[in-house]
Each structure stands twice: as C-alpha cells, then as structure tokens.
C-alpha cells in the first residue's frame, strides 16, 4: 500500500495482505477442526467431566488404532458399507425411475403421491422394526431401510429436474425428429443432472442414517451395532471412534458426488471472460 503508482493494489489492500487472506480462507475449514480439537483437549484437561464421559482426544486416538489393529472397525465398517452400497443402488434406482415416470406422466403423481407422502412423513426409526419383521435381521432389512430413506429425495429431485427441462429445447428436439431415447440422452439427462446430483448429495448422507438405524434395530453387526455395544460396555472412546467413522463415510460419499459434479458439470464453471 505504501508503494505509489500501484493504484489497483490500494483498492483491495496490498498484494501480500490479499494472499494472506486467501490462504486464511483456504485453510479455514482446517482451522475450525484444529480449534475444535483444542477445545476438546482443554475441556478434558480441565476435568469438568470424568474421562468415561468425555475422554481426551489421545484416548480416542488410541481406541481408533486398537480398533483398527484388531480388525473390529473394518469388519463392522465393511458390513455397513455393503448395506449402504446396495441400499443406495436400490433406492436411487427406484427413486430416479419413478421420478422420471411421474415427471413424464402427471397422472401418476395423483395416483402415487398419497402413498409416497405418507411413507415419507413417517419417521424412519418408526418403521425400521417393521422392515426387520418383513425382511429378517440379515442385511436385507438394512438395505431396504437405506433404500427407503434414499428414495424420497432422489424421487423429488428427479421430478423437479425433468419438469424444469426447457420447453423450447423440447420443441427443438421435436423439430429435429429426435427419438425418445435421443431426447432423454441429449436433453433430459444433461439438463436434469445438476439438480439430480444436488439431490444425490442429500441421498448419500442419508444412506448412512438408513443403514445405521437398521443396525440399531437388529443388533448383530455394522457400525450401528458397534456403537450400541461399545456404549453398553462404557467404552466411550470406541463410541466416539465409531461415530467419527460414520461421519467419515458421509463426508467421503458427499465428496465423491462433488467430484462427479466437477467432472460432469464442467460447463457450469464457464462464463463470459
């Protein structure tokens, strides 16, 4: 700022101030994490709560390494991941296809919406036990629970997205004698993709809830089971490790969808220079 003649610099502060601000902004998510850890450490060192209620970060770290080495964490993680994977495929598959059908045939909406809305407005924890009765305590009931919870946002987003396809572009496709498949592939799919992917972010994080709620109910294996059994043994560090693992799954899935957006929606980053 002190330099004369660098007029554009004086407007936004000097270059070095700006780079510092930029770096601060880039690292700010990390900063909040560090702050949280510090707060946690302080809380435990002050011994406001006993260690079995709020264990220090180091104890949780130890529990993590132990659960990793004994294979306990990976065993339950893989169970949960498998349920989530098939649940996501099932729920998304049904949600996307019924959503597309409803968007194309409004009569279906009148027919199906009472069932769908009733289904959706019931809390998942309420009918998870019912799903266990119907589908057994094996993986199927958890896959179905995940599918049910994933279904609704993908359905709604698909309906909204396909209905928002520009009528003028539809006319263009008609005037070019496009086949229904061409209209789907070249117009509806790319046009709906941004909204569908945004819905997928919600679905991906909900999938974790679906699987874990299913595991709470059946008890046997999976991260949901690990949380309850650790709590029953007052192993609070392991509870925290398991919860953080769930967070990590949700974040990874979310990031994966962000990656898809980055790749498939590259055109949205382009604008007038």
């Amino acid at each position, binding site marked *: 700022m002190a330099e004369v003649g660098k007029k554009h610099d004086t407007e936004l502060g000097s270059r070095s101030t700006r780079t510092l601000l930029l770096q601060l902004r880039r690292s700010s998510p990390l900063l909040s994490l560090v702050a949280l850890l510090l707060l946690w450490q302080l809380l435990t060192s002050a011994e406001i709560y006993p260690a079995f209620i709020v264990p220090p970060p180091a104890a949780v770290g130890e529990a993590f390494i132990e659960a990793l080495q004994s294979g306990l964490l990976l065993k339950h993680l893989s169970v949960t991941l498998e349920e989530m994977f098939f649940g996501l495929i099932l729920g998304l598959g049904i949600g996307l296809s019924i959503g597309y059908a409803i968007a194309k045939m409004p009569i279906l909406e009148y027919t199906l919406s009472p069932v769908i809305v009733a289904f959706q407005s019931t809390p998942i924890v309420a009918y998870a036990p019912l799903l266990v009765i119907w589908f057994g305590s094996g993986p199927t009931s958890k896959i179905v629970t995940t599918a049910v919870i994933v279904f609704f946002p993908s359905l709604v987003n698909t309906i909204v997205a396909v209905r928002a396809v*520009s009528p*003028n*572009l539809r*006319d*263009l*496709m*008609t*005037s*070019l*004698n*496009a086949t229904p498949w*061409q209209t789907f592939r*070249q*117009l509806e799919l*790319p*046009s709906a993709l941004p909204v569908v992917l945004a819905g997928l972010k919600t679905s991906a994080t909900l999938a974790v809830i679906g699987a874990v709620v299913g595991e709470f109910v059946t008890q046997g294996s999976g991260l949901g089971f690990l949380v309850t059994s650790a709590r029953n043994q007052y192993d609070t560090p392991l509870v925290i490790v398991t919860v953080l693992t769930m967070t990590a799954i949700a974040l990874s899935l979310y990031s994966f969808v962000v990656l898809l957006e980055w790749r498939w*929606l590259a*055109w*949205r980053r*382009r*604008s*007038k*220079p």
Partner: protein
Amino acid sequence: MKLSLRELVVDFKTPDEGRLPALGPISLEVSPGEFVCIVGPSGCGKSTLIRTLAGLQRATSGSVAGDDVPITGPLATLAIMFQDANLMPWRTVIDNIGLPLELAGVDKARRHAAVYELLPQLHLQNFALSYPAELSGGMAQRVALGRVIVQRPKALLLDEPFGALDAMTREKISLELLDLWREHRQTVVMVTHDINEAVLMADRVVVLSSRPGKLVADIAIALERPRAINMIYRETFLRLVRETRAAIDPPDA
C-alpha cells in the same frame, strides 16, 4: 421448397374448455427460394403460423403443405429458428451447431467437418469450443443460425430470430443471413416486428390482422438484390415501409 397455407385455422383450448381462435382462416403461398417476412400485431398468431409450418402445432382446420405434401409433423428438409438462441448450455459451439447432424446419425468426423466449414461465415472461428455462457447475444444467435444452416434445409422458418438483439447487432446479422441465403436460396418465412427489417430483407411482406391473424396485405418488395443497408434511405424503401405500416394500423381505425 414451396410452402402453402390453405384456409388454415388454429384454435387453442382455453382453461374453461372454450376455444381461443389464434390464427386464420388464412391462405398463403410461398414460392421456392422466396424470402417472405411476416409482420403483425403482438399475439396475432405469427408464432403459431411458424410452428404449424414446422409441424410442431396441429392445424384445427385447413392445411399446410411443403411442395404440395401435407405437413403433419417435423420435416428434415424444414428447419426452424426460435426467438431466443435456444442453445444447450452443456454443449460447446460446435456441438450445438452439430446437434441436428448428431441426431441424424452423422459420424463425428463428418459432423465436425461440416460445422468447421460453417464457422468462418458465422464469424465464430475463434469460439468453436466455447460454451453458450461465454457468448454474447449476437454470437449465440449466430450459433443458432449455424444449427439451422448445417441441416441444409430447403426451407427456413425464422420466428423473430433477432428480436432479442440490439439494433446494431441485428442489422449486421440480418445482412449476414441474406448472404447465406443468397448462397443456398432456401425458401424463407421470417417473422419480425421490425418493419424496416422486413422491407430490407424480404421479397414479399405479409401483414396479418390482430388475433385471429388473417392476411390484410401482401406487399411485393421491388428492391434489387443484393440488398445493402444504404437502401433504407431510398424513396422506394420509405414508400414500402409507409405502405406496410399503414396496413398494420389502418389510418381510418
């Protein structure tokens, strides 16, 4: 391609199950290679006329035909251009222009060859890989024009193709369109709300009445071709503009 409208009437259903007469009855013949402009008050059915010719709108009664074959759906030999550029934002300039060929199953190499050949005439050679969001309004409309030309249609249907552009850009693109037309001599039916533009471009200016649009005047434009912008100062030009304007709002009304 010869285009004909025979006693064409188009009605729309109203929400209360009544009928809204939008167009006609109207009869009109456009000879092969002729450039016809249609003007008329807003809402008189100009877009409806274009959409019926394009096979996007069904006639309530009467008929439309291309080379005496009734038009009941979109024809490959007939291309329509809309008021806004109507581009796909996820496609680059070349992929937007090449869309009709892609849908027709033309392979990528031949598609690109055809599109790249057009780019210089459209002044888009430096924007082949740009996305619509990166284009100005005029450039976007040139892409839309390219998407029409690449189909090598026998007839062009243009619905206020430059309506969204500023006057200067519009003038420029209009003359470019005339150059393209001189080369290929397609039949053109163009809707415009700009009387000067209609007189400057057309062989005939057809004036429609207010809704439901009927033919009120069919004015032959006896100006030589190629048309140039300085013709707008000529006495003949001004007389034709006055004549067209008088037909749109009759002085005794």
